[in-house]
Structure formats: C-alpha cells, structure tokens
C-alpha cells in the first residue's frame, strides 16, 4: 500500500507538469487553430533560463542579501519573462507568416523553431561544472561538461531537503495557476474574448474583439504557463537535458488530445491520465520503466483512433 501511495504521489507530480504544457497547447490551438509543436522546447528553455539566472544570482551573491523565497519568486519571474518573449517570437516568426497557408506549414515551422531553440540551448549553455559533478559524486567525476550533457536543476523547492514540502509546493503551484487561469478565462473580459475567438473567430471579430491583440496576449500567457511547467519539471526531475523538449512536447500534446483540444479541463484530465498510466506501468510491471513512454503513446493512439475528440471534447462533424 505504501508503494501505491508513493506511485500515486509521483504520478500526481508528473501530471502537474504535463497539465501545464497541455494547457499551453490547448490555448494556442484555441486561438490560432494551429498546433504549436515547440511548446516542449519553450518549457525546457524556461527551465534552462532559470538555471542560468540561478547561477548568475549565486555568483552575484543575491541569495545572501534577499530572503530565499524572494529569490525563488524572482527566478520564476525571470523564466516566465523569457518564455513569454519566446512565445511571442514563435507567434511572429513561425505562425503568423503562415496564417493563410495549409495547416502543414505552421506545423513544420514550429517544429523547426523548436529545433532552433533546442540547438541554441545545446550550443550556448555553459553550466556550472560543480553542479553536475556534485550529483555524480566528487569534483573530478565530470570535468568536461558541455551544454549537451544533462544539467542539474537547482533544488529551489526543497531548501531544507524535505521531499514532502517540495511535492506539496509543486501541487500548490499548479493548483494556483489553474485557479488563476480559470478566473482569467471566466471573470475577465479578455478571457471571455479569448473563449469567443476559440469558438468562432469571424463572429468575434464582428462583435468588435481585437483578435490580433488577444492572440498576442494568449501567446504571452501560454509562455508563462510553459515557463512554470518547465520550472516544475526541473524541480521534479532534478536533471534536465537540452533535448528533452521533443519528448516533453509530444507528451503535452498527447495529454491535450486525450483530454480534448480547446478544453482547459480536458488538458488537466489528459495530463493526469497520461502521467498515471506512465508511473503505474513503470511501478507495477517488471522492467516497466523502459516501456512506460511506449504504453503512454499506445494509449494516445488508441484515443486518437477511437475517440479523437478526447475525453470531454465536443464531437465535431466535418461539413463539406
């Protein structure tokens, strides 16, 4: 039973990180009708930005001056700003130019954009060498560390080494983000316009909604969501690799599809379902860890084939 609750906890944590990426996918798909495949890379970029800012802040001695939690909040804000900027850049460079062309084009251009982000991370990120060598033991364990090796993510959420407090913080942060998003979407005029655009772009334009402005704002908010998911993923996994983006993005997109694209709560359900499948397969099936991702993808394919509208999505009938 103890094992069950342990697995339950890890599944919940993994589900939290998937959920936020899936929400990013859903939001972008809602307003632009395109799948932004570089979401995963943007999230990874966010966590690397936080890592870089952490190293910079440490060398500047900021942690001695400011209280720890202020520093962490500052780091999250820095990551969020980077990702929001990146989200905006993605929109301007790889989605807007292909507005009227076939759906193939934004698909490929966002994948290319993701590769650019990933490669820039791999080339430019020069890590603090002792961070990784400390993890594998001894300062001489890894003397040559390039940006292409996995990087140690600073343990920002467990200052006193307590795993439980970290876990609770991760779940709390996700819950707060979901609550904020819910309030934004349903209680503010901007959020309502966003929903209107998701339902019918032409009609919302006719009712006087500034569609292009709302789209830009969506990409900024989505970027913030992705930055936080990257931060949570880093805190959960402890090690980040620059090329995690493709896998992470595919998981996030899968979660969004399983739950139902365009639907925020669908993203939550999909993310949790995927995480639970993955974690319990690796926990209960012998040698299952290796196959957990594969089982998750099989679940996705089954969903796509038999219920493409997702768990709580609306069925769309194609009209000629």
């Amino acid at each position, binding site marked *: 039973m103890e094992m069950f609750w342990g697995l339950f906890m890890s599944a919940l944590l993994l589900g939290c990180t998937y959920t936020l990426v899936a929400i990013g996918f859903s939001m972008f798909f809602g307003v632009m009708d395109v799948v932004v495949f570089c979401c995963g890379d943007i999230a990874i970029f966010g966590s690397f930005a936080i890592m870089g800012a952490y190293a910079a802040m440490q060398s500047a001695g900021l942690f001695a001056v400011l209280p720890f939690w202020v520093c962490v909040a500052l780091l999250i804000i820095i990551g969020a700003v980077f990702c929001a900027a990146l989200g905006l850049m993605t929109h301007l460079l790889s989605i807007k130019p292909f507005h009227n062309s076939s759906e193939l084009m934004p698909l490929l*251009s966002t994948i290319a954009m993701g590769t650019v982000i990933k490669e820039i991370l791999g080339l430019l990120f020069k890590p603090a060498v002792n961070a990784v060598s400390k993890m594998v033991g001894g300062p001489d364990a890894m003397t040559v560390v390039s940006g292409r090796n996995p990087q140690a993510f600073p343990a920002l959420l467990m200052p006193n080494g307590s795993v439980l407090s970290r876990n609770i913080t991760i779940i709390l942060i996700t819950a707060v983000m979901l609550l904020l998003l819910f309030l934004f979407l349903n209680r503010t005029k901007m959020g309502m316009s966003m929903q209107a655009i998701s339902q019918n772009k032409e009609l919302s334009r006719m009712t006087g909604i500034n569609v292009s402005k709302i789209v830009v704002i969506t990409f900024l908010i989505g970027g913030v969501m992705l930055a936080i998911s990257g931060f949570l993923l880093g805190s959960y996994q402890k090690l980040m690799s620059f090329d995690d983006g493709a896998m992470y993005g595919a998981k996030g997109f899968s979660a969004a599809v399983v739950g139902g694209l365009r639907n925020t709560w669908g993203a939550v359900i999909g993310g949790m379902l995927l995480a639970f499948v993955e974690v319990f397969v690796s926990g209960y099936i012998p040698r299952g860890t290796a196959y957990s*991702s594969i089982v998750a993808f099989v679940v996705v394919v089954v969903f796509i084939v038999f219920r493409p509208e997702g768990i709580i999505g609306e069925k769309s009938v194609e009209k000629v």
Partner: protein
Amino acid sequence: MTNNDMPTAEKCLTVAINVLIFGLVFLMLRLSYQISLALVAAVIAGLLRMERKGMIDALFSLFIRNRNVAACAAFICMLAIPLLLSTFRYQSHIAVMASIYAMVCLGVNFQMGSTNMVNFAPAAFMGIGAYSMAVVTMKLGMSAWLGMIAAMLMCAVAGLVIGLPTLRTKGYYLSLVTMALQLAFTQLIKNIPYLGGPNGISGVKALSVGGFSLYKTYTIFGVKLAPHFFYLIFCSLALAVLFYIALRISVSRCGLALNAIAQDEIAANCLGVDVSRCKLFSFLIGSIFCGIGGALYASLTSFVGPNDFTFTRSLVFICMVILGGMDNPVGVVVGAFLLTVITEKLRGFSDYAQLIYALLLVFILVAKPTGLIPKRVRNYCELFGRSLVPPTSEE
C-alpha cells in the same frame, strides 16, 4: 512514333543538359567543401531563378518529348559517376549516402507530398529495415539478399499497421500518431536486449554477388578502387529503379487519386476514389522504400544503433522533401542530394548541423514553401505522344 520528325538538335540538347547536370553532381561531390558549398548555393539560386522564368517547365517538356534519349543519357552519366569517383573513398561515401537518403525521401514523398499526410516516422521505417537486415545477416547468419527481402516485408507490415489508424485520422492527429510511433520506436529499440539495446548490432554483412562482396577494396588493372565503388553502382541502380517506380506511380491513375485525397478527401470519395485503399497504398509503398534505404544503410555502415533512427533524423528527411519540392520525384531526389552534400561537407561543424537544418527549413518555408522544383501539371498529351484531348483555351 513521332520521334523521327523531332529535330536532332533537340536530342543533342537533351544529352548535353544531362551531361551538365551530372557534371555538376560530380563537381559538388569532388571539390573541397568551400567550393562545393558555393556550388550548392549557386545551384539553389539558379533553380529558383529558372523556376521563376519558366525554364524548368521547358526543361521538363523537353525531357518528356525525348524521354528515351534522356533516360539513356542519364543512365550512362549516372554510371560514369562511380567510375570518376572510383579512387576517392570519402566522396564515394557521400554519393552512396545521397542515394540512400534519396530512396527514403522518395518513400516519404508518397505520404507527405502526394497525399498530404505528414509522416514524422521515416527514420523509424528506415530503422525497421536496417534492423531486419542486421537480425537476418548477423543473428540468423543468412545472406544479405534475404535480409533485404526481410526488410521489405517487415516494412510493408509496419506500414500497413501504421496505415490503419490513418484511415480514421488526419491532420494534426495523424502527425501525432506518426510522431508517437517515431518516439516509441527509439525507446523500444533501446530497451530490447536481443537487438543490442543502446549499443546496437555491429557486423552486418555487406551485399555480395556470387561470393564477391560489393563493399570491399579491389585492385583492378593496378588501380586500387575505393571500397564503395561497387556499392555505389548498386545503390545508383537501385535508386534508378525506385525513381522509375515513383515516377510511374505519380503519373498513373493511382498518383492522381492520391493527389485528389490531398486536395479534398470527401470530394475524392464522392468521385469514386477508394480513400482507404489509396491511403494504405501510400503508406505501404512509402515504408517499403524507406526499408530498402534502411537495409542498404545497415549493410553500408555494418552497424545499426538506435541513435541513427531518431526523431531528428526524420526531420532531416522531411526537410529534404520540402527543400526539393513536394510531390515531384525529381525535386525530391535533388533535395536529398543537395542536403546530403551540405551535411557531409560541413562535417567539421557537426555541432551546428541541426541548427543549420532548422534555419534552412524555416527559410524555405518562408521564401518558397513549394520547394526548389515543385510539382508540375501532368501533361498527358506530351507524355503519351498523342493528342488525347483537343487543346482548350482554358489551359
């Protein structure tokens, strides 16, 4: 036939253009990387310019009118390249890689170009072919030719299995299915101990004809040939066969049906196109092409590992198809060749290879989304040498 009243000058022109094209191919392979890359850039710029001036259209109709002469000339020129490169080991290697990649790209083109279904898993299909080859020759100790057949069979089965969900999905969902397949394939291969796990399988046999290995250093008339010599000839011939098949399919009724599905699936269905069968066909034939490429790759490098068949590699194939021009076998082969030359000549900067690919992909998508040699209007009158329909003014 009407060939007799065609002026001989036109035939000479066809031959000359063929020699020119293959001469350029040879120079790109042979020269040092600065000059070769400059040549690649010049070719890309030239193709863009010719396309704008309508010269490529003229070239196509010239070749179609004199297709027998053109085919013979191209065949001879193609065989001249291995002879000219016979003592250059690395350059022959680039040529072999280019022809293998061109085969895979021709396979991808059936799905991506003709039917407008983006397949993100060509590297996985290539991997299935390569691993079948490795298992048959290395683990079971059988002949490499049997490995080739096994690769084709395995890929056909895999293509059908992957093709089945595509009947119910399209657009993004389809790309997600193929993407999931690609990511799962790499994970799966890494975790099967029989297939060597992350270490892969080494010692794959090379193809051999009657005891003579195609991949071995021979000395003929005192000239020490590069080990790739016979392999390059074989790959060129195989590419020529696959290219011919792709060309025939694209002008056939089946190719037309695939295009109709790409335009509008429902409309195609209403016009009597068997959508399910055509989609399955495009996956089947495409994955067989990828499998042949994979088997040849395995037998060239004599090693297969999971890192050769990753998602990134799939993106490279997609990039090749888009660069060359979707739904045009000629364009696809050109794209595969150009991108292979760029990659191999930039070996010294391999850290930047992915970045270059991605930037190039964005550049093509923005500048010329149809690629260097985009698809043509099928000119059946010229193709069959007779006037099937009276010329109309709408054309």
